[in-house]
């Protein structure tokens, strides 16, 4: 049994169609994924293909319409507490400084919640260590608006990891950043992952990002999203920006691009 099993999962959103009748939109259709413990997986596909929906299914925020999502062999029926999440918008709380933003999960999630006040010092040290890891040591006491977009994203990654989740779900985390910042953050994320060894599912529309970071890339077709290609990436780690110019890297990206084009047509 793998760490995460997604078996024949459908997800239909109910809404109203153009003529005002209630209709079901099939966002994800018969998805099958198995993800190993500590694996780094990327989901790519055209926009609106249900990539983010698949993330929500794994996190338990949305129940599937059909099929089963299992994490550690147990069926997911309610929001999992062992996930960390990061989004395109940094969603830091503007009234808290960076350190307190990073500490937020510990105030809420068990078992940290019980001892949050008592372990204030330990927690603080943990947050600071994490911030140091992403190069934000000097910014712990700054407010979010005082940081650039890339720095806010680093802080958000720290917040997603502070409670040591076993699964990290990233929904186009770097999409709003400029290319240089984004490529910097690939390195940061790769470091964090090799240091924490948690399971990561990354949703992105950037194929270079997917190949750079992931062990396995899943290509999804346009709505209703189904998985049309599973590609493992064997490029040795740690990958660097230089790797992205190697022929095998470029070939992989080209191949994925081809599959996405096919997925759009179907």
């Amino acid at each position, binding site marked *: 049994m793998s760490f995460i099993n997604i078996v024949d999962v459908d997800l239909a959103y109910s809404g109203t169609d153009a003529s005002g009748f209630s209709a079901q939109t099939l966002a994800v259709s018969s998805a099958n994924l198995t993800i190993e413990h500590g694996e780094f997986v990327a989901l790519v596909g055209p926009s609106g293909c249900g990539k983010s929906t698949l993330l*929500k299914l794994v*996190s*338990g*925020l949305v129940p599937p319409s059909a099929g089963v999502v299992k994490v550690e062999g147990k069926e997911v029926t309610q*929001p*999992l*507490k062992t*996930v960390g*999440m990061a*989004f395109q*918008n940094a*969603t830091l*709380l*503007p*009234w808290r400084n960076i350190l307190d933003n990073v500490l*937020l*999960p510990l*105030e*809420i*999630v*068990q078992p940290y919640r019980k001892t949050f006040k008592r372990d204030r010092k330990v927690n603080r040290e943990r947050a600071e260590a994490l911030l140091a890891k992403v190069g934000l040591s000097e910014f712990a006491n*700054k*407010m979010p*608006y*005082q*940081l*650039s*977009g*890339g*720095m806010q994203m680093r802080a958000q990654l720290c917040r997603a990891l502070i*409670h040591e989740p076993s699964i990290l779900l990233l929904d186009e985390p770097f999409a709003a*950043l*400029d290319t*240089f*910042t984004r490529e*910097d*953050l690939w390195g940061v994320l790769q470091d964090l992952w090799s240091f924490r060894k948690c399971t990561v599912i990354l949703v992105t529309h950037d194929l270079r990002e997917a190949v750079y970071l992931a062990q396995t890339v899943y290509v999804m077709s346009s709505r209703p999203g189904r998985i049309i290609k599973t590609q493992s990436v064997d490029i040795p780690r740690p990958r660097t920006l230089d790797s992205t110019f190697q022929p095998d890297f470029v070939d992989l990206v080209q191949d994925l691009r081809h599959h996405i084009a096919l997925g759009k047509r179907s």
Partner: protein
Amino acid sequence: MAITVFVALWWLCVVVFHIESYVLPSPAEAVQAMVKYRYPLFTHGMATLTTTLIGFAIAVVFGLFLGVLVGSWPLFYAGLYPLLVGFNSVPKAALVPVFVIWFGVGTVPAVMTAFMLSFFPVVANIATAFATIEPELLEVMRSLGASRLDMIMKIGIPRSLPFFFASLKIAITLAFVGSVIAEIVAGNKGIGNVMLVASSNFNVPLVFAALIVVGIMGVGMYAIFDLFERRMTGWSVRRGPSIETSKG
């Protein structure tokens, strides 16, 4: 500055158009009346201030509670909001006689009117703040296993503070309007009552002196909330230099 110009214009009008003091007194006459009647103005002013603050305090507590309710649960939003808007469209001055029938003449109708007039902006602002929390943030919180209470305490309340203070500033001025109206219609004390008595005696300078007193109290309360707002929600104003370091 603006006040100086306003007073100057007022004075100019009175002098240029030879307006009698029982129609429109000059600022000097109003101030003279303030000095002359300082003792009754003070006691009645305090009565009005007390009435207003009680009504306002109830409005804030009630408004906060209802705002959180309406903003957090779509069901309440759909069900209660139209009702609240309807309530707010009713002219409150028309309700004062009803309150008098229910509670008798005196402080209670004034408190009620102040409350009725001032709770709506608080509800509307808090509800908006709660209803517009970013969905991603809610997902982060839900995936951490946050309860409703966590969401309200850790996200909703801090996030709504700027809206809350903005609504307090509107609400306090409306509360003054409410209590003074009630005092005029059915009061036995308070600034509104002073105005009623003064105008029935054609003591128009005193009416204006009373208006000035209300104005000063309103500005004073506004200034207090402004001070609180600056201290508590500095993050939303983003004052101070933001550091522009290298990206990433």
